[in-house]
């Protein structure tokens, strides 16, 4: 039997708005515990929520970028469940009328395709529990500490249709979504800090036509690698179970990164009853077409479009993808250099190759923290084109520019790296070399071509590496055949 995995992803994206979703507290949760809090996000008696308009702008940006329709009158519902770090013991979320519905995201990678987006809804984040004593889990803890700084931070949940069929696809979707969110500038989009969190719903069935199997929700993946590993593991676990005529239990499982396995949690008895009902503290929102078109008009170029544009400029597709996926400064550097006349293919080559390598070597996270600008790169490439810099000299110039020593020309001059590509000047040096090595020269004239290399080496030595070796070789060859 050929088993088929069916995967859907739920992605929580924390918005980087100034203030929280329903109150004026700063939406920063790395501050001292319980300092960015007020009666509203602490759920004190009598406090009332007021929606953050900027958060609505941002969810609309996400929804429109995901080709969704915008709901004219979205409604906030209360999702009721008791949890110590949920201060009202209900979360303000959305139910049947989310802000965005029915979109898709084109995903590349080894198995490209279109992933359906069911809905994109707005909600508020919970506080954070830290369980003290024991192994950090709530069971066995001596006591728990609660920090409500994160409580009420705006959260957007993006729910796919069950369109994904492999762990690699799931990863590719996750990566593309992260790029999209970054490009939209709506979130810090840092997985390791939890500003993007993935939950995967995984089931396995006996073939593409078979009815859907029992689904298992997996949580706690905080990198793309762990997303892919967790889904791979879960598909394997379920396939194994089903092959042994066992049954998959509907449950939520947690990915254990160290063990490389998902671990069972509490079994879900049917679907939880959250007793959703419209939050009477909030009036229905009205998103008119003018608001929607204003947001649509403000959307930046999205990653897919950018990749296509780069490819049309002649950039190799892999490099185009690297530029779009890399830290945002790289693509900016590339674009600026090209605008100043650099060849797109060569510029892409340098940015994704030498520049990335140099930054890594210097342990620098973003090119924007360095002295390397688009104009410095364009100048560098121009000097290479003009034969003024050798490959190694160009790398040295790059290092100097990154270190903030100045523009490419300036660094090359200061470090004395400009090649002698002046024919007359080189010819003089060559005459000196030939005079010093008459024996080798006559053997060259006699047909021993490999001696060109030796003589070029002597030229390089006399010029302390600054001669253009290609030009020197050509001049020596010309001189030897001239007789």
């Amino acid at each position, binding site marked *: 039997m050929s088993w088929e995995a069916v995967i859907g992803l739920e992605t929580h994206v924390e918005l980087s708005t100034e203030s929280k979703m329903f109150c004026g507290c700063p939406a920063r949760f790395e501050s001292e515990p319980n300092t960015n809090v007020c009666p509203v996000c602490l759920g004190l008696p*009598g406090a009332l929520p*007021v929606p953050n308009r900027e958060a609505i702008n941002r969810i609309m940006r996400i929804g429109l970028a995901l080709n969704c329709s915008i709901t004219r009158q979205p409604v906030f519902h209360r999702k*009721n469940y008791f949890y110590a770090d949920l*201060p009202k013991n209900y979360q303000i979320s959305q139910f049947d009328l989310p802000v965005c519905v029915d979109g898709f995201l084109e995903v590349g990678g080894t198995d490209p395709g279109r992933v359906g987006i069911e809905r994109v809804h707005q909600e508020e984040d919970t506080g954070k529990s830290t369980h003290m004593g024991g192994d950090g889990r709530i069971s066995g803890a001596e006591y728990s500490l609660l920090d409500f700084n994160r409580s009420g931070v705006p959260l957007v949940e993006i729910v796919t249709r069950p369109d994904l069929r492999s762990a690699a696809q799931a990863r590719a979707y996750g990566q593309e979504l992260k790029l999209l969110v970054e490009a939209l500038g709506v979130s810090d989009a840092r997985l390791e800090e939890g500003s993007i969190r993935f939950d995967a719903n995984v089931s396995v069935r006996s073939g593409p036509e078979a009815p859907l199997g029992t689904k298992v929700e997996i949580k706690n993946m905080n990198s793309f690698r762990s997303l892919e590993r967790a889904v791979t593991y879960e598909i394997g676990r379920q396939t194994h179970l089903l092959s042994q005529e066992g049954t998959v239990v509907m449950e939520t499982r947690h990915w254990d990164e160290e063990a490389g396995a998902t671990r069972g949690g509490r079994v879900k008895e049917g679907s939880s009853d959250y*007793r959703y*009902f419209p939050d009477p503290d*909030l009036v229905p929102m009205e998103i008119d077409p003018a608001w929607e078109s204003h947001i649509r008009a403000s959307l930046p170029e999205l990653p897919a479009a950018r990749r296509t544009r780069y490819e049309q400029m002649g950039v190799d597709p892999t490099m185009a993808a690297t530029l779009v996926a890399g830290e945002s400064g790289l693509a900016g550097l590339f674009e600026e250099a090209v605008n100043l006349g650099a060849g797109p293919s060569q510029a892409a080559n340098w940015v994704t190759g030498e520049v990335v390598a140099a930054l890594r070597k210097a342990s620098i996270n973003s090119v924007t923290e360095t002295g390397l600008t688009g104009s410095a790169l364009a100048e560098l490439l121009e000097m290479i084109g003009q034969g003024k810099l050798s490959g190694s000299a160009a790398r040295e110039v790059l290092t100097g520019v990154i270190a903030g020593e100045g523009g490419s020309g300036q660094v090359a001059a200061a470090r004395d790296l400009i090649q002698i590509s002046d024919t007359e000047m080189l010819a003089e040096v060559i005459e000196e070399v030939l005079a010093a090595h008459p024996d080798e020269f006559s053997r060259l004239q006699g047909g021993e071509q490999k001696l060109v290399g030796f003589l070029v080496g002597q030229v390089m030595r006399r010029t302390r590496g600054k001669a253009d070796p290609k030009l020197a070789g050509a001049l020596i060859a010309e001189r030897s055949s001239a007789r």
Partner: protein
Amino acid sequence: MSIPSIVEAARALREGSITSVGLARQVLYRIAMVEAQLHAFLTVDTDGLMAGAEEADQAFAEGRDIGPLQGIPIALKDNLTTRNLETTAGSKILSGYVPPYDATVVKRLRQAGALIVGKTNLDEFAMGSSTENSAFGPTRNPWNTDRVPGGSSGGSAAAVAAGMSLGGLGSDTGGSIRQPASLCGVVGVKPTYGTVSRYGLIAFASSLDQIGPITHTVADAVLLLEVIGAPDPLDSTSYPHEMEPVGARLGRGLEGIRVGVASQLGGAEAVEPDVEAAFFQMVSAMERAGATTLEVDLPSTEQGLSAYYLIAPAECSANLARFDGVRYGLRVNGDTTEQMMSRSRADGFGPEVTRRVLLGTFALSAGYHEAFYGQAQKVRTLIREDLARAYRQCDVLVSPTSPTTAFRLGDRTDNPLAMYMSDVLTIPSNLAGHPAANIPIGLDRHDLPIGFQVMAPALEEALMFQVASAVEELAGFDTTVPFDPSHGLRGGVR
């Protein structure tokens, strides 16, 4: 020495014929005399009141006048949060809870110069019609201490009626201002939903709750509402626009006013004969004063009661979820977090609150949601349509406020459904979000006050007050509770 109305006191303070300290002492004297019998207050802020009064007198002396309520003592229902002043909502689960912030209405009162006398008793979380559901013991009716003051704002109504405060604020979810005002013989107003900020009102049923004044006179209610009623950016459901000043039409009489009497409200089955007689006498008096009266049909009234008792519990089941022992209030420890929460709630909530939370949780549950909560919302629409139809024929609607006068303590505590019937005439205004007022119009055969309700369309407070003040004048009812300094209040059956 009788307690002046707010309007009289405000004038006398500015004339210098009385002082704020004098007013405060008068109020504290009354409290000393009768509070032991009534238990209208959960907290009396004697020090705050006296300090505030001294400040107010100082301000008057220096010619500073920060607002119309400068130096006037006001009592607050204990479900309004007050900074640094214990706020319990009448519940054990909030016993000892001291809020870090003032409700918007409290802020506005303070900004207008009002002094806070204290926090008044209520049915736990405003759930009840007699103030017997308070975790801290019932309040008694100043007209007869064997009787309930009504509820849930029974403490504010009793405090104002007994002269322990010049005015008070209550909250009205299904009649919780108007019904106790009726039973205590004072004026009580539930404004249009959204015109008074709910920020800082400990929520019972968010889509129905509304804060309003309880006073001796209609003019006092107007004054208080002018102070507390304004758009509030902290309440999303607050009405954001300017409205006609609520007192704009006071004194214009009844000439040409079309008064609708709903057959379902006026002569409803459970209405006591004395209440019915007084009500129709007033309707006739209104006709003589120039109003035209007509009978209107409100067919959905009875379904309204059922809908109310689904919507309010459903909302309260979520609103009261936050009381879990984690961050504030009562905590009863357990072996797990769930057990701690569950024990805290079981021990912290009284039987009526527990009943409604369970009812609401059930009504919202999967599989029952549509049959209960969904249907109830549809009935709410029917009520609105009923009223809209009625208001095409008439300007205001009138009814008795409560089918009965004050009943005896304990009479209805074993029969929740009979208790729920107390609200049948007041609930339609909450379901529709419309304004309504109680005006005392007389006494029944037991010398217990009878209340008259004036209802108006949304945002028509000015019209409602025009009619209410005409009714007040026609009734000529003396709201002063018979009070003998040597014997205190009357007890027992007369």
